[in-house]
């Protein structure tokens, strides 16, 4: 963003004037004529000199000395601080929460968040984080559940660097996170920098450091738009403490203009609609869309054209409902036309741009980790069952979600009554076939989950299996990654909501599960939803403070420990390495296990004020504990169950 050359009569200018005034006042003690001059300038009548050449006291001074008046009340010269306007701008963007660990560089903003407005501390509500890494990952988890950003507030250079890992992870996961960092150049030198955002610029999508209040309001709006526009990612606005505190009595918040999403053109929409309508057996492969509205549109299109669909809902959020009657291989797996929505490998694939492409246009160094390619890392894939039809065409670079209305309208325009009848017949066949496939799959799945059912330590399959009957009739969200816990929900649970499963960490960074679940639970709190966090033990120890945040804010979250007492993946890596070197595995535990002593996570939770129980080693006691946990989470009392598990 262009730097402004504007100047403002800000806090620093005010302080300079005040200092000059104070100096003048001090001088008045020895230079009475100056006092007279000042009095004349202010229109106050100058007293006549006394006998000794000292000015006679004014009437006001006499009144004060004699107790006839009270001392003057403190005068509030800041009637409308810039931070109030910033908060109002954020409120008008629909931001529900701001998570922060306190810091002096944003004291002005924090005061506005908690006191400005009626009611104060709503939209956004201030969420107390115990670490900036947690604050940003909370925003990461929230955005994956809701399809829109919340705000993370960071304190100067130190807060940005504390949050950096989470920023990187959100960037890699293409998740919109809005961040504001405070910058106070007049307080602690180590907490400020000439280019604060530079520390995370390689993995933020956009940043700005506005110099005036007016610019700050525009920057906040643009940061929001940049975050939610494909390729989505974290954005950062650095706000100086001065403009947070400056008075802005006449500043107006600029009208918000939503971003423009790149869509396919009308000609392409007609072509795709025609292909879908005329196909004998069309297929739609749905990857990760942006918002729940996009998911709804994908369902609408599939139902309109009677296409069997694949989903990425078991790999992450915002995809086609897994148990929808059209989701599955369908009655005939020879597809004559396939449309990919944020997936590759179809005759027509509409996929948004990669972050790497955006980064290349920036005036900054790109660290070159390859960006995120649509279709990779669980966002794409052919999904459930079936094979594609003809050879794939190069993807059309546009936002699939924003393009769907164009295709839907074209389909509606082109469909004939004969085609509608044929489609209804096809839907009936697909529905029956998918239901049969579902029953076959679930029968095979439960057979495989029997393994180790009564074993000790407890099998990870049993955790997911015992959980499912307890939550299947609830509105639930599995917010924790399951890649280290067997992923048993994929087969056993029904992922029918855009937020059913929020997927992996993004960049594989640990310290994600608990704070992301807290973020998802913030989204769930007002929506009568519960969040399940199957929490790996190594991961929890990066940011256990979020347990307190969950309790403090009364979040509906159940944490079930997958406690294998190790960073187990690494343990296996080291075992193999020792093996190929012929040195044996008896020391592979060094540095990759959590033993001597074992951690007691129920006690840890208790320390943070969270109800819980465990460690549980007897599998027959698991179900009752989970029942207690679900009930507690539903009451808004987060709960932790420590389960000693098999490694995987």
């Amino acid at each position, binding site marked *: 963003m262009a730097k402004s050359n504007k100047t403002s009569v800000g806090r620093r200018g005010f302080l300079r004037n005040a200092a000059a005034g104070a100096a003048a006042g001090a001088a008045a003690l020895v230079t009475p004529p100056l006092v007279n001059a000042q009095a004349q300038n202010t229109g106050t009548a100058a007293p006549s000199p006394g006998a000794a050449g000292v000015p006679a006291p004014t009437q006001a001074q006499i009144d004060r000395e004699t107790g006839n008046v009270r001392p003057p009340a403190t005068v509030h010269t800041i009637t409308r601080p810039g931070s109030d306007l910033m908060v109002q701008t954020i409120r008008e963007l629909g931001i529900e929460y701001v998570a922060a660990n306190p810091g002096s560089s944003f004291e002005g903003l924090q005061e506005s968040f908690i006191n400005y407005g009626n009611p104060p501390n709503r939209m956004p509500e201030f969420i107390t984080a115990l670490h900036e890494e947690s604050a940003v990952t909370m925003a990461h988890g929230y955005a994956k559940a809701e399809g829109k950003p919340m705000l993370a507030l960071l304190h100067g250079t130190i807060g940005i660097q504390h949050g950096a890992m989470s920023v990187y992870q959100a960037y890699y996961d293409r998740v919109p996170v809005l961040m504001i960092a405070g910058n106070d150049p007049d307080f602690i030198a180590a907490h400020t920098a000439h280019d604060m955002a530079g520390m995370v610029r390689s993995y933020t999508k956009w940043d700005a450091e506005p110099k005036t209040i007016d610019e700050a309001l525009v920057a906040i709006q643009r940061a929001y738009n940049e975050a939610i526009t494909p390729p989505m990612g974290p954005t950062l606005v650095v706000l100086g403490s001065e403009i947070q505190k400056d008075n802005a009595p006449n500043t107006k918040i600029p009208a918000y203009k939503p971003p423009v999403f790149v869509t396919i053109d009308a000609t392409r929409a007609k072509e795709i609609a025609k292909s879908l309508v005329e196909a004998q057996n069309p297929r739609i492969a749905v990857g990760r869309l942006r918002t729940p509205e996009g998911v709804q549109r994908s369902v609408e299109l599939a139902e309109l054209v009677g296409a069997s669909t694949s989903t990425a809902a*078991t790999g992450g959020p915002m995809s086609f409902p897994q148990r929808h009657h059209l989701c599955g291989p369908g009655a005939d797996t020879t597809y004559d036309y396939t449309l990919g929505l944020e997936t590759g490998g179809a005759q027509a694939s509409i996929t948004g741009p990669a972050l790497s492409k955006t980064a290349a246009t920036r005036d900054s160094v790109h660290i070159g980790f390859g960006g995120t390619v649509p279709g990779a890392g669980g966002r794409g894939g052919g999904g*459930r069952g079936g094979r594609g039809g003809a050879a794939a065409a190069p993807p059309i670079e546009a936002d699939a979600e924003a393009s769907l209305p164009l295709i839907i309208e074209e389909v509606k325009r082109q469909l004939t009554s004969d085609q509608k009848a044929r489609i209804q017949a096809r839907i009936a066949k697909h*529905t029956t076939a998918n239901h049969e496939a579902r029953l076959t799959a679930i029968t095979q799945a439960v*057979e495989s989950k*029997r393994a180790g059912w009564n074993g000790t330590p407890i099998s990870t*399959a049993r955790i997911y299996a015992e959980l499912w*009957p307890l939550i299947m009739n609830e509105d639930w969200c599995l917010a924790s990654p399951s*890649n280290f816990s067997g992923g048993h929900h994929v087969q056993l649970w029904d992922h029918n909501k855009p937020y059913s499963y929020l997927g992996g960490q993004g960049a594989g960074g640990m310290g994600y599960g608990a704070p992301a679940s807290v973020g998802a639970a913030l989204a769930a709190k007002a929506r009568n939803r519960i969040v399940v966090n199957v929490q790996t033990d190594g991961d929890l120890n990066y940011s256990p403070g979020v347990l307190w945040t969950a309790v403090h804010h009364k979040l509906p979250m159940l944490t079930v420990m997958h406690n294998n007492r190790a960073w187990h993946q690494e343990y296996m890596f080291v075992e193999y390495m020792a093996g*190929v070197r012929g040195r*044996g595995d008896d020391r592979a535990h060094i540095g990759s296990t959590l033993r001597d002593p074992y951690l007691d996570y129920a006690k840890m939770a208790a320390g943070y004020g969270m109800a819980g129980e465990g460690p549980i080693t007897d599998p027959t006691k698991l179900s009752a504990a989970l029942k207690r946990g679900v009930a507690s989470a539903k009451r808004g009392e987060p709960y932790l169950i420590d389960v000693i598990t098999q490694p995987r």
Partner: protein
Amino acid sequence: MKKYYVFVALIALTAPAVTLNAQGGRGGGGRGGAPVANVPAPTSPVTGNAASGKALYATYGCYACHGYNGETGARAFVGRWGNLATEQGFVTFLRGRANVAPLAPSTSMPSFSDTALSDKQAKDIYAYIRTFKSTAPELKDIPTLNAIVDAAKQEKK
């Protein structure tokens, strides 16, 4: 990904699977997971000491990939004895794993040289794992799993 699948196929039953990125591209069918196998335990002779083997099974991290009971994890072997049919076959298998470090981290079955794990220790481990038995009840005796199937049957057709 193709390379990964071929690799997994080659190492078959007794090597752990790479699961770090296993979520990629997974569709609605979910993860695999072979049904509980019911191949009877081998009856070949056992010469090792099972009690000693129990300690070695833990110390040498066998549980990491095969579970504490040999029936969970990426490479469960209870009911699928394969390379574990005989004591000598087991020892030969331990010695015959790869001895070249890959560039990428691997969770494949490690190699156990005789300097790292003696024949006696290997046979003790074998004696211990031969004591493993399935703890899996019959499906009809697991109400939770039956409830899951019943719920699926009730899903809207």
